[in-house]
């Protein structure tokens, strides 16, 4: 037994220390704020109203520079997400256009998007995006919360964390903005959110922190639309395994009873 205990303790030490080193990899920045999200924990589910508001913030503010190429409009109506109605999703999709196929003369044809189409990226290429943004590339947001350590809290902290006054000992390029949550503190994205910038359809007051919260929530769902399915399947699988474990435990005990 001694050997097993020692090994378990030491291995858990390695896991824990690794997790630490990963979160430290972002560079010198403030520790993320933790506003608390409903999807956290093994039974967590997304707050649908917040996801809907988050989509509104994304489409009205973020989408002018950031694409979300991994998402299709149909995702917006699927279970475990914002769960817009299918008609609403058709309406949303139809606001965007796509070049699709060619007509009888071989000329490209443009049509309105349908739910099975992907989200439209604001720029045709990375170079075009850079050219329009002072040389900085606004990253695609499909996976942003998974591509950053503690992603959801990081996005929330970053968006709500722009500060007008910066400490005297820091100097940054005029084209950049000061944000203590960004690694290196100088970020190419100017403060994107201001109070009442968005008029929420459900009447919620659009403060900077509310919008940051909703959009961080939305981006977390977007990074992994199957999260609710994953967690609920996990309960079933682990429940089954625990029952199986108990049966196996007594089987082993019984079997080895007369092995001396």
């Amino acid at each position, binding site marked *: 037994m001694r*050997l097993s205990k020692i090994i378990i303790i030491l291995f858990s030490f390695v896991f824990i220390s690794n997790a630490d080193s990963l979160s430290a990899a*972002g560079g010198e920045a403030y520790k993320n704020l933790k506003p608390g999200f409903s999807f956290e924990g*093994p039974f967590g589910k997304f707050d649908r109203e917040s996801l809907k508001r988050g989509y509104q913030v994304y489409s009205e503010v973020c989408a002018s520079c950031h694409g979300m190429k991994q998402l299709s409009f149909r995702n917006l109506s699927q279970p475990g997400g914002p769960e817009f109605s299918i008609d609403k999703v058709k309406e949303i999709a139809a606001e965007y256009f796509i070049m699709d196929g060619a007509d009888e003369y071989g000329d490209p044809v443009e049509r309105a998007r349908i739910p099975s189409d992907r989200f439209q990226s604001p720029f045709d290429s990375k170079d075009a995006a850079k050219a329009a943004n002072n040389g900085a590339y606004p990253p695609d947001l499909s996976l942003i919360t998974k591509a950053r350590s503690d992603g959801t809290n990081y996005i929330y902290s970053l968006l709500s964390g722009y500060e007008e006054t910066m400490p005297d000992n820091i100097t940054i390029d005029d084209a950049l903005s000061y944000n203590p949550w960004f690694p290196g503190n100088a970020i190419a994205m100017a403060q994107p959110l201001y109070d009442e910038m968005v008029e929420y359809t459900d009447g919620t007051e659009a403060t900077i922190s509310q919008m940051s919260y909703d959009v961080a929530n939305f981006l977390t769902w977007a*990074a992994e639309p199957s999260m609710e399915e994953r967690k609920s399947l996990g309960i079933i699988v682990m429940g089954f395994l625990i029952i199986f474990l108990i049966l196996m435990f007594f089987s082993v005990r019984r079997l080895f009873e007369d092995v001396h």
Partner: protein
Amino acid sequence: MNHDHEYTPSNGFTKWLDKRLPLIRFADENMLSFPTPKNLNYFWTFGFILTLCLVTQIITGIVLAMHYTPHVLMAFDSIEHIMRDVNYGWLIRYIHANGASMFFLAVFIHMFRGLYYGSYKEPREILWILGVVIFLLMIITAFMGYVLVWGQMSFWGATVITNLVATIPVVGESILTLLLGGFSVDNPTLNRFFSLHYLLPFVIFGVVILHIWALHVTGNNNPTGISVKDSNDTISFHPYYTVKDLFAYVVFLLMFSYFIFYNPNILGHPDNYIEADPMVTPAHIVPEWYLLPFYAILRAVPDKLMGVLLMFGSIVVLFFLPWLDTMKVRSARYRPTYKIFYFTFLVCCLLLGYLGGQAPEGIYLFLSRVCTIYYFAFFLVVMPILSKYERPSPMPIGISNPAINNNLEMDDNLAPSGNN
């Protein structure tokens, strides 16, 4: 116990089959009535667990390959396609990605068990060597699999590791070009890594069969390290160890499930959710956790070629274990001095794992060097010296006989007993 029974075909068909291809007899002898020491502890369940790990990786991998596109422009998106559009694709991919970590966790425990109980000693040298071959193949396979994701860490990890080849004098550059299919990590690299990542698991599977074959020739070692003498020392594999192994596997699956369903990305690096970009280097390039000890050894040496040699040497040295440690007593249970060095070695390996994730500077670099020196000293200095001078503590006469053996004719006690 009841393992003395011999397989007798019961009906016409099985009798007919038994004369031509004794498949059922083979299964009976190797999986059901196989005589197994009765005192095996839970550390002996990892062979079974590892076999299932390999099967899991192969099955999930085959399904993933049906939906994956090995092209630099599409690889990353095709994985997101699996995660988002394929039915239960997220589940299959998370099983495969975390399964690799679980596979390594199990193989580390399996190897440290062998090291503790002297499972590599006579007559199990070939068994151990085959195990090291499997381990080496696993490392190569896992590394290539990680590249297929085509995230930032995939790309830069591949760049760093393949460039190690270039340190080989004279032919290094040519081998590197051949390995990459060009002058940098690019589409040809991804293509050949995909091809090899699909091939190697089947090679592993083949070596696993040899590994199990070798095991069934010598029989299991056991926690006392004392050879099995007669049928009083053994029980049949089934039902005793099928059930015990299955119990251990369920415990293992519970931990595995935690990662799959509740923390699927904790063992990976967030940067690998950013598509590979040859123009942007990540702040820290780190391999997957299970390769960190070797990465730490690599970076502990100021000279690049020496670092590469030591890193490979850290695995190659394992091949020679049976001849470095010639002490007849197998189990560390009866080797008080070896035990101390063994646990120091264990701590040292875990520390190397931690250090591999840190920047190679200051105290981290210093500790990496100390641990690297100890890693090799343990095999090359401690083992041969202890083999010569260590005095084992008193041992029981046999697995079934706890009386202390006063006759110090160890050879007699530990000699292989042939086929039981």
